[in-house]
Structure formats: C-alpha cells, structure tokens
C-alpha cells in the first residue's frame, strides 16, 4: 500500500492513465464503497469456493441463485410499496400463499393433463396459465386489499402493522375456506422433474447433477429482473416510480396523482408475490396456507439488506440470502437459519441504509 502511494508523485508526468496506476487496494476500496453489493457477492463466492469442492460449489451456487430468484419475485413488490408510500404491508406473505394456491390449482386440477405430459412444450400450456392466473388473482386481491385495508392507514406505521397482520390472517383463513385445511401436494410438470447430468467427459463441470426446475427458476427470475429493470430505468412509469420514492410531494407538484401510481405499484407488487408463490409452490411441491408467511422473515431480510425501495438492491439482497442459505446449509446445517439474519446484521452495521440506499429512513 505505502509503496504504491509513494510511487504516485513520480508518475505525475504521464497524466491520463491514472486509472491504470491506481493500486489494487485502492481499486478494491473503491469497489467496496461504490459497488457494495457486487463487492459482497464477490467475497461470498470467493470465500465459499475456498472451502467447498468446486463441483459441489457449482451445484450449490446454481441452487442458491434459483432460490434468490424466487425470493426476488416475492420481495420486489414489498420493497417498492415501502419505498414509494412507506407502507409496511405485512400481509405480503398471504399474497405469496394465494398465488401458490391459485397457480397450484391450475397445475394440479385444471390443466393437470398438460402438466403430466413428458413434452416440455405441452407442459408450458399448463405452466404459463398457472403463472398468469396466480399473478392475476394476487393482483386483483391486491387491488381490493389496498382500497379496503391499506388506504385508511397511510402514513401511520403502527396502524399499518396491526391492520396488515389482521388482513393477512383473514386472507390465510380464506385460503383454508376455499381450498380446505389440508396441505395440497402439487407435482412439478413432468418435464421439470428430475435433473440433468452433465456428461462426465466435460472438464471441470463433468458429472454434476443439476435439478431442472432450479434452472427454470433461474431463467425466469433473471428474465423478470431484466424486465423490471427495463421498466424502472427506461420508461416514464419507471422514472415516476423512482421520483416518487425520492419525494411524493414533488411528484404531485409536477401534476401526477401519486395514489394512482401507488395503487398500480401495489397491484403489480401483489401480482409478483403471487408469481413468486407459484414458483415457491412448485419448488416445495406442497401447498400450505402459511407457506408465504414462513418466507416473510427472508423477504424482510432481503429488502432491508438491499436498501428499502431499491429494485437492484432487492435483487442482490435476494441473491445473497439465497446463496448464504445454501453455502452455510452445506457447511454447517445448524447455522443456516442464523446465517440469513447474521448477514443482515453484518450488512446493517457496515451500511445502515442497506447495500443500495434509495430513501433516507
């Protein structure tokens, strides 16, 4: 470190190439400050690869990313509703369950014929409607929920907590009324069952076994993340959402009705929770009314970790939580549950506003 810094003045004559001459430590420090999310992800990948055998590591990493992708779907809606209106919706988990049941019904009862065909394309005839139906049902219930439950308690966190926990209990009871109190098994569509075996002949990755469903979850999660980033970064609605997260009042002063925007985001967030729910339901292959609620701790960790209101932060938060769960679960299973919360505590001590801060809490 000191060597590089003392060498700096000598190199002043050749200006313009400062970037190349910066010491690696400075570069690292810069990454740590400005790309905290990538820095942490890199550290986690490197640390785990150092202790875990490469092939196992690869399988764990893909599974971790798959879990991260599903977590991201579940958490993205909640981070936006909090960012935009500082609404704490603790009923978010109920929307996850609702999506899982709605989508599961399509897969297991309505279009089960298509789902049990060995052809992937025929399976899609069941999978796509299941995803859309889950998103639709969760979105519609989200619309009603916002009007009835959330709207009267804007701006009051204590009331929001009480009222949304109550709403969540009602929603879960309604699920029991409609679908019955028993757990419902949902088998994955035929083509998504089982695993790939990577041919032994391939160097490095030969012989590893990858569950097909996890690969699908990774692809779907990344696709939805890319779509959301496009909306948030490139479209007028996206600009409006980012502006609203910064200042509601200024958005209204510009002539936009923030409540309408919020309602739209709440519906979209509920629909995404529903989508995450179906994905989670197919992952677990078992539906219970409380399955969404059980994910809430992880969801809350993800959004706090990433920085409330930040889509990017939510994505990286979800990846980190997914990965640490799998890595620690492999190395020392008893610590898996502690690891998630430990990660959050560690990050908050380092960056109290999360990895990618958007709003000042």
């Amino acid at each position: 470190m000191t060597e590089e810094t003392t060498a700096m003045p000598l190199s002043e004559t050749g200006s313009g190439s400062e970037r190349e001459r910066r010491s690696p430590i400075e570069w690292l420090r810069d990454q740590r400050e400005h790309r905290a999310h990538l820095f942490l992800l890199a550290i986690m990948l490197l640390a785990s690869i150092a202790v875990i055998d490469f092939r196992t590591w690869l399988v764990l990493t893909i599974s971790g990313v798959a879990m991260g992708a599903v977590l991201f779907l579940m958490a993205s809606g909640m981070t936006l509703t909090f960012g935009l209106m500082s609404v704490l919706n603790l009923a978010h988990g109920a929307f996850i369950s609702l999506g899982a049941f709605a989508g599961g019904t399509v897969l297991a009862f309505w279009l089960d014929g298509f789902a049990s065909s060995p052809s992937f394309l025929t399976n899609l005839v069941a999978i796509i409607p299941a995803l859309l139906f889950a998103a639709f049902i969760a979105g519609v219930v989200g619309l009603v929920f916002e009007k009835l439950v959330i709207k009267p308690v804007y701006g009051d966190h204590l009331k929001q907590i009480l009222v949304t926990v109550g709403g969540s209990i009602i929603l879960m009871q309604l699920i029991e009324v409609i679908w019955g109190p028993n757990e419902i098994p949902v088998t994955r569509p035929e083509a998504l069952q089982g695993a790939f075996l990577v041919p032994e002949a391939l160097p490095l990755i030969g012989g590893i076994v990858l569950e097909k469903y996890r690969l699908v979850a990774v692809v779907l999660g990344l696709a939805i993340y890319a779509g959301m980033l496009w909306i948030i970064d490139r479209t007028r609605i996206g600009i409006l959402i980012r502006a609203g997260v910064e200042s509601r009042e200024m958005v209204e002063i510009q002539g936009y009705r923030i409540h309408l925007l919020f309602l739209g985001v709440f519906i979209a967030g509920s629909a995404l929770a529903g989508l995450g729910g179906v994905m989670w339901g197919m992952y677990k292959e078992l539906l219970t009314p409380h399955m969404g609620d059980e994910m809430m701790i992880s969801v809350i960790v993800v959004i706090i970790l990433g920085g409330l209101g930040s889509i990017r932060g939510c994505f990286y938060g979800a990846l980190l939580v997914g990965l640490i769960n799998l890595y620690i679960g492999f190395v020392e299973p008893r610590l898996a549950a502690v690891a998630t919360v430990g990660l959050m505590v560690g990050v908050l001590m380092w960056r109290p506003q999360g990895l990618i801060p958007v709003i000042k809490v």
Partner: protein
Amino acid sequence: MAEPILKLSGVKADIDQYHILHGVDLVVPKGELTVLLGRNGAGKSTTLRTIMGLTTLTGGTVTYQGQDITRWPTPKIARAGIAFVPESMGIFGLLTVRENLVLAAVSGPMDEARLQWIFDLFPPLKKFWDKPAGTLSGGQKQMLAIARAVIEPRDLLLVDEPTKGLAPAIINDLADAFDQLKEQQVSILLVEQNFNFSRRLGQTVAVMNDGAVVHAGTMAELAENEELQQDLLGLGLGAHQ
C-alpha cells in the same frame, strides 16, 4: 393593473397547531411579475404552498382564472397550469437532469424548440444532461428547478426564494431568465428576500407580516419610498445595497 390571474381572499391556514396565515388577501395580475416580500416567518412560503394545495386551508378562497380552486388536489392544480418551485427546489437527486425534465413535461414528449430555449438560458443543463441531478451545484439545481417549471408553457409560476445562497453571477443569469419569461407574458409570483433582485424584476409587490398582506402596490412606488421600505421591511434596504 391588469386583470388578476390569481386571487386569494381571506386565506387562513394552519401547520399543526400553529395558525400561520390569518386571512391573506392577494391579487396576482395577469402577465406581470409580482414579488412577495416579508420577514422570515411572515407566511410567504406557506402562502405559496397553500395555493398549490399542499397546506390545508382553514378558511378563505383561492380563485385562479375565474375558477375556485380552493379545495382542488395538488396534481389538478398543477395540470391547470400552475408550476411551483419550492424553496428546497425539490430536485429528484437520483434522477438525471433529462429524467427530471421528462417528468416535468406532463403532457407528453418534450418540445425540442422549447428545450433548446432552456439550454440557451441555462447551458449547464445541456452539459450535465445525463448526470444525476444530485451531483449538480446549488446554482445548477436552481436552474433545473426553474427549467422544470417552464419546460411546458404555464400560465402562472410560483417561485420561492430562487436566489437563496447563490453567487451573484448566477443570480444575474436567473434574473435574465425571469426577464425572458416576463416577455412571454407568463404571470409570476416570486417570494424573495433579496430586495435588489426583486426591485429589478418586480412590477407589483405585496408585503407580508405575521400571516397577512400588509401592503400591496407597484414596485416603482416601494422602490422610491425608503420610508415605506423602512416601515414595511424593517430595513433601509435602498441605503444598504
């Protein structure tokens, strides 16, 4: 005096348990620049916020172009053609300069000619077009705030202390911008503490004290009458500056 574009009659407003406005009567003539003067805490900013529907009225009426807008929600008031630049400027710091302006153009894509006019008024906005607005200097932020207010033709601008904390050179640029807006017959209600700046631009003036308008008239009259300045503003401003 030209016909009024905006008229406040007996406007009362509270913030929490404090009575801030005690019956404000104010007329903003169409196509003129009206300066609202007064000490800190006199209620100038609250008056602007009340017009925009951001502070709840407890009494009185606000009439804009013959319509009673007293109970209108803020977005509706904005879309009726009133632009508001708050004292804090309200720039979206994480959005780029371009995105700030895209949002401000509520009715659709930005008009190229108008954008060019804004670039001529405030060249830094062109230079930092794709930079986050939060990285701009104070003066540049103020330029952006005003550009946002005029990116589309508006009938009335409410501007709260645009010169606060800015260097004299930038204040001159702002004054030029207001001159051009005056030429375009935009009505402006400007809250100011900088008397030189207000004297240069203002045609009409209103002075507030303790939540009410205590003097209204032409700027020429106030600028010439140092006794009146002393009386209303508590300072012999002309003598000092």
